[in-house]
C-alpha cells in the first residue's frame, strides 16, 4: 500500500553522468534595501552540492544563514549570481525545495494530518489518487513517528512533535532538496537528540539531499557529509568547507572518542571561536 522507497526517483544517487552539478550556488550576492540604506549580507557565495548529500551551514548568529537558505528556497530573490538546481535557475519557491522552518510553521487551525495533506493534495493532485494521497500522508507521519497524534491540533502537541510534523510535511512533498533552518534550535537536549537520530535514519532510507542550518557544532558533525562554515557579516561568505569522512550509519555514543569526529569538531570550534569570533566576543577581549 505504501510505495517502496526505491521508487522515489530523485533519491537514487545519480552517478555523475552529465557532469552537471545537482545544486549550484553561483557567485551569489545579497543586499537588502530598506528605506534608503542598503546592507550587503552575503557576498560571493559559491558552492556545489551533490545529490543525496547532507550539508550543514554553520556560522554565528546574524551572519546570513537564514538569508542563504531563503535564497535557495526562492523565498528571497538574489541580488546577483544564481541558484541552479539541476541546471535550472531557481527564482520562485516550490515544493521541490521543501523548507522546515525554525518555528515549525504548522497551520494552527488544521490537525496534524490536515497540515500534511494540505501539502500532499497540492503537490500530488492529478498524480496520485485520493486514497494514495491519504496513504502517502500517513506514511510520512509514520516516518517521523507521529501517527498516534494525527488528529490533534498543533496547539495540543509538544515543540518536538510539531517539528516532527513540519519534517513530515516537507518529506511528503517528495522534495529534491530538503531545507532545514535550525530545525532543532528551540528544543531541549534530549528531544533534539531523538530528532537528530530520526533525521539521520530518514536520510539513510530516502537518500534526500539536505541542507541544514545550525549553530550546534556537535549536531553539524554528527549529521553532515560536509560542513560549510560562514564568516561573520556584513558581507558574509563561505570561510571554509569541512568534509566529515565518518562511516554511516553513525551512532552518537560510538563517536564520542572517534578520531575523525573529535578532529572535525575541533576544526569547526577553532574556525568559529578563534578565527571568526562573534562580533560581541571579539569586543569583550
Amino acid at each position, binding site marked *: 500500500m505504501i510505495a517502496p522507497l526505491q521508487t522515489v526517483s530523485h533519491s537514487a544517487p545519480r552517478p555523475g553522468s552529465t557532469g552537471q552539478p545537482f545544486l549550484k550556488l553561483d557567485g551569489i550576492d545579497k543586499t537588502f534595501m530598506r528605506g534608503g540604506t542598503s546592507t550587503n549580507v552575503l557576498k560571493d557565495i559559491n558552492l556545489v552540492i551533490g545529490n543525496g548529500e547532507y550539508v550543514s551551514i554553520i556560522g554565528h548568529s546574524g551572519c546570513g544563514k537564514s538569508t542563504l537558505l531563503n535564497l535557495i528556497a526562492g*523565498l528571497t530573490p538574489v541580488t546577483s549570481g544564481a541558484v541552479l538546481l539541476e541546471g535550472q535557475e531557481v527564482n520562485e519557491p*516550490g515544493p521541490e525545495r521543501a523548507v522546515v522552518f525554525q518555528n515549525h510553521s504548522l497551520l494552527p487551525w488544521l490537525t496534524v494530518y490536515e497540515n500534511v495533506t494540505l501539502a500532499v493534495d497540492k503537490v500530488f493532485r492529478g498524480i496520485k489518487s485520493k486514497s494514495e494521497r491519504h496513504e502517502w500522508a500517513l506514511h510520512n507521519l509514520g516516518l517521523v513517528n507521529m501517527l498516534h497524534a494525527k488528529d490533534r491540533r498543533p496547539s495540543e502537541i509538544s515543540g518536538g512533535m510539531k517539528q516532527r510534523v513540519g519534517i513530515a510535511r516537507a518529506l511528503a512533498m517528495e522534495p529534491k532538496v530538503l531545507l532545514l533552518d535550525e530545525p532543532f534550535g528551540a528544543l531541549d537536549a534530549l528531544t533534539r537528540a531523538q530528532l537528530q537520530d530520526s533525521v539521520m535514519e530518514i536520510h539513510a532510507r530516502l537518500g534526500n539531499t539536505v541542507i541544514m542550518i545550525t549553530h550546534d557544532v556537535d549536531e553539524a558533525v554528527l549529521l553532515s557529509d560536509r560542513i560549510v562554515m560562514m564568516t561573520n557579516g556584513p558581507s558574509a561568505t563561505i570561510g571554509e568547507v569541512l568534509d566529515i569522512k565518518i562511516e554511516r550509519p553513525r551512532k552518537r555514543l560510538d563517536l564520542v572518542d572517534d578520531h575523525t569526529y573529535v578532529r572535525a569538531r575541533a576544526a569547526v570550534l577553532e574556525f568559529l571561536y578563534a578565527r571568526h569570533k562573534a562580533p560581541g566576543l571579539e569586543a569583550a577581549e
Partner: protein
Amino acid sequence: MQHLAVREPLVATPAGALPSTVASLVEADTRMTGKPKPAAPATVASTVSPTGDLRPNAAMRFVQWLGTDVVPPLLVVLALLLIWELACASPQSSLPAPTKIWAEAKDLILDPFFVAGPQDIGLGWRVLTSLQRVAIGFGLAAIVGIALGALVGQSQWAMRGLDPIFQVLRTVPPLAWLPISLAAFRDANPSAIFVIFITAIWPVIINTAVGIRNIPQDYRNVAQVLRLNQLEFFWRIMVPAAAPYMFTGLRIGIGLSWLAIVAAEMLTGGVGIGFFIWDAWNSSRLSDIVVALVYIGVVGFVLDRLVAWVGQIATRGTAAS
C-alpha cells in the same frame, strides 16, 4: 486604526466560550473548598461524581447555575422594579409604574405573536420584520466588507489610499445616511437596509484588513513553498488566519446594525419595532414603549451572543497556536 479591533480577542479566552456556566462552576468550586483551583473547569463536574453517574451532577450544576447566574440578577431586577413602582406611584407621575404597564400592555407582554389587524400585531412579528432588514443589510455588509477588507489588507497601496477614507466614513452616524439613501432608492425599505449596510460595513472592512495584515510571514512562506494559488490562499490561509479579527468586526457590526435599524425605522415607518415605538409615542402609549424597549434590549443581546458564538466555533484552533 487598530482601535476598532476590540482588545479582547473573541476567541482567545477560554472563559469567554461559556461565560456564565463555566465561570460560575469555577466560582462555586472555589467557594466550597475555600481556595481557588486552577484545574480545567470542564473537568470539575465529572470529577465530583465518583459513581460516574451524570444525573445528580447535571442537577447539581443546574442548581449552581440558578444560584450564581439567575438569582442575583433576578433579585436586582425585582429591587429596581420596586423602586420604580414607588417612584412612579403618584397619579401625577409622567412615566408609568410597572403595575400600570402590566395592566395596560399585558397583551404585548404575554403574547408576542398575536395578529389582531394590519397594524395591531404582536411585538414578536415586529421584531422579526426588523430582523429581516438587519439580516439583509448585515449579510451584505459581511460579504462586501470581508471582500473589501481582504483587498485592502493585501495591498500596501490600497491601505494607504483607502484607510483614511474609511476612518472618516465610519464616524458618520447611521441616520445621517438616511436622507441620501431615501433620495437614491425612493423607497423606505431598501433605504433602511442600505443604512444597516453602510453602518455595519466599516468595522468589518477595517478589522478584516488588520487581520490580513497580521497573517504571520511563516504562513505566507508555507503557501509560497506549496505554490497555493490566489483562491487556495484565500480559503486555506487568509480566511482561517484572519477569522478572529473578522468576527470581531462582525460582532461590532451586528451591534451597530441593531442600533441603526431601530432609529431608521422610526423615520421610515412600516411594521418594524422602531416604527412601533414612534407610533406609540405619537399616541401617548408610554407603557407600550417600555415593553418595546425590553424587546429591543433582549434581541440586541441575543444577536451579539449569536455572532460571538458562531465566531467561537468558526475560529476554534486559530487563536491558540
